[in-house]
């Protein structure tokens, strides 16, 4: 479980997060939603220990993550951030291999190679394994980055907008894969994902954390959080949540 205690974050004098106090359950997939500038990415960076909160603390499975050593932190939490393009001349297999760095620190074992291959297989990247990132489409590249986070084999995976700039099919593929990963089982991961796509949130999330202007609006199970009224209030636009062919959908009215 993630326990966020009275978290404040101020950057260059500007309050980014204020008084966040909640818990995120360990099982299933948690969606972090909110309008632009709500502090979703900053919250994820605090959870991953990459940004020290100005006040408050973050405990992941009882461990004070910002105070943990970098390698120890990276063995507990994998973060996929929206970053700059990676080094040129990097193949998919090499990128996914970086996910094992916290475990081998530059000296990979046969077990590391096996786990890298398992992550490549898990995200159907085998046909692309020896292709260079610069030759891939945005969706394929994003899948490779998610596979890298998966290869870290951490109990927690934090993903910052993994669906950004993806077409619906690629977005659905990645979300379905993450849903499967978050289901109970020997390989199950606890997944926290920042989502802009509300349709994906209502489709896959088990738990929802809603933020607005750096403050927590709601932290609740999907059925409770993702209602037409809550979403309309959160985004200040009329949003309808309904069922189509037995599946929940969210649409802008």
């Amino acid at each position, binding site marked *: 479980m993630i326990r966020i205690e009275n978290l404040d974050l101020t950057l260059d004098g500007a309050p980014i997060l204020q008084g966040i106090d909640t818990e995120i359950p360990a099982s299933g997939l948690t969606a972090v939603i909110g309008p632009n500038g709500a502090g979703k990415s900053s919250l994820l*960076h605090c959870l*991953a220990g*990459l940004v020290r909160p100005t006040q408050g603390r973050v405990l992941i499975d009882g461990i004070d993550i910002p105070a943990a050593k*970098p*390698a*120890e*932190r*990276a*063995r507990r939490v*994998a*973060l*996929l*951030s929206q*970053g*700059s393009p*990676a*080094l*040129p*001349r*990097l193949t998919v297999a*090499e990128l996914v291999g*970086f*996910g094992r*760095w*916290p475990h081998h*620190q*530059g*000296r990979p074992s046969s077990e590391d190679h096996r786990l890298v291959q398992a992550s490549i297989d898990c995200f159907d990247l085998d046909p692309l394994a020896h292709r260079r990132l610069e030759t891939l489409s945005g969706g394929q590249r994003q899948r490779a980055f998610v596979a890298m986070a998966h290869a*870290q084999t951490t109990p927690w995976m934090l993903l910052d907008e993994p669906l950004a700039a993806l077409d619906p099919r690629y977005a659905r593929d990645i979300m379905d894969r993450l849903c499967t990963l978050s289901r109970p089982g020997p390989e199950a991961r606890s997944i926290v994902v920042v989502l802009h796509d509300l349709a994906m949130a209502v489709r896959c999330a088990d738990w929802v954390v809603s933020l607005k202007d750096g403050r927590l609006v709601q932290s609740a199970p999907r059925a409770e959080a993702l209602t037409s009224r809550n979403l309309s209030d959160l985004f200040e636009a009329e949003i309808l949540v309904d069922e189509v062919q037995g599946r929940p959908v969210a649409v802008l009215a």
Partner: protein
Amino acid sequence: MADRRLLFLGLGLLVAATLYLLWGLRSPYGFILSLRATKLAALVVVGAAIGAATVMFQTVAANRLLTPGIVGFDAMFVLIQTLLVLLLGGIGYAALPQIPKFAIETLALAGAATLLFSAILRQGAGDMTRLVLTGVIFGILMRGLATFLQRILDPSEFAIVQSASFASFTAIDPVQLAFAAPLLAAALVAGQRLAPALDVAGLGRDRARALGVDHDRLVLKVLALIAGLVAVATALAGPMTFLGLLAASLAASILNTHRHRLLLPGAAMLGALILVAGQFLFERLLGLQSTLSVIVEFLGGMVFLMLVLRRRAA
């Protein structure tokens, strides 16, 4: 594949070094060989230091167009020479004992770099753009100051500063070299040990930190190594702004890999190869009718332009 190419680079360097040592060798063999061996050793260590330092700098700066020279090493070196000539006069400058002069230059260059790096890094090691921009302004300031001081030198003293401002291997002091070579070799080995972490740093600061790399500490270590490598190499031979860019770009395209385990020795060998081959052409075929650094800087400048234009086209 890349490993084999690295091997070929090593063989190429060996061939160039052998040619340089033995081409047109005549009596007195021992004297000429020892003279050439000193120069060869200087060419190899300086080329290797600048090549490897540039690869490391480009990785931590996340920019393939930069060289450590851009943060003002060459300008600082020229300013030191100008100040020494101004304070001691032409004769006093020429009479300076080599070892203390070398030590002063190295310490001043490394000190300036450390000051610059630490001042910027206090703001956070992630801010490499600020480091580079401050370095560029620092370089312009040093260059402006040196140009101003050169105006009050008399013409013969000005000529001394001018000749000291270009890298030259014609008068390498063996004692200086004996001090410099082990330092540079140690820094190169230290750089090679950081190669796997540099691979991860190449993913960008946030991603590297998310993978458990203490990025800020790594950047500090790497910048300290770069300051040492470039300061010692510059104090030994003189400034070479574009040699590193030439070596690093060629290493990246020949080895075609992101792995620093191969890129660092590759750029080091290419830096050495460029200098040895250039000095061979310059001494044996051009009859000393030009300056090696001018040729290297010209080629390096062309590569720089090519990279900028290619990036713009992409």
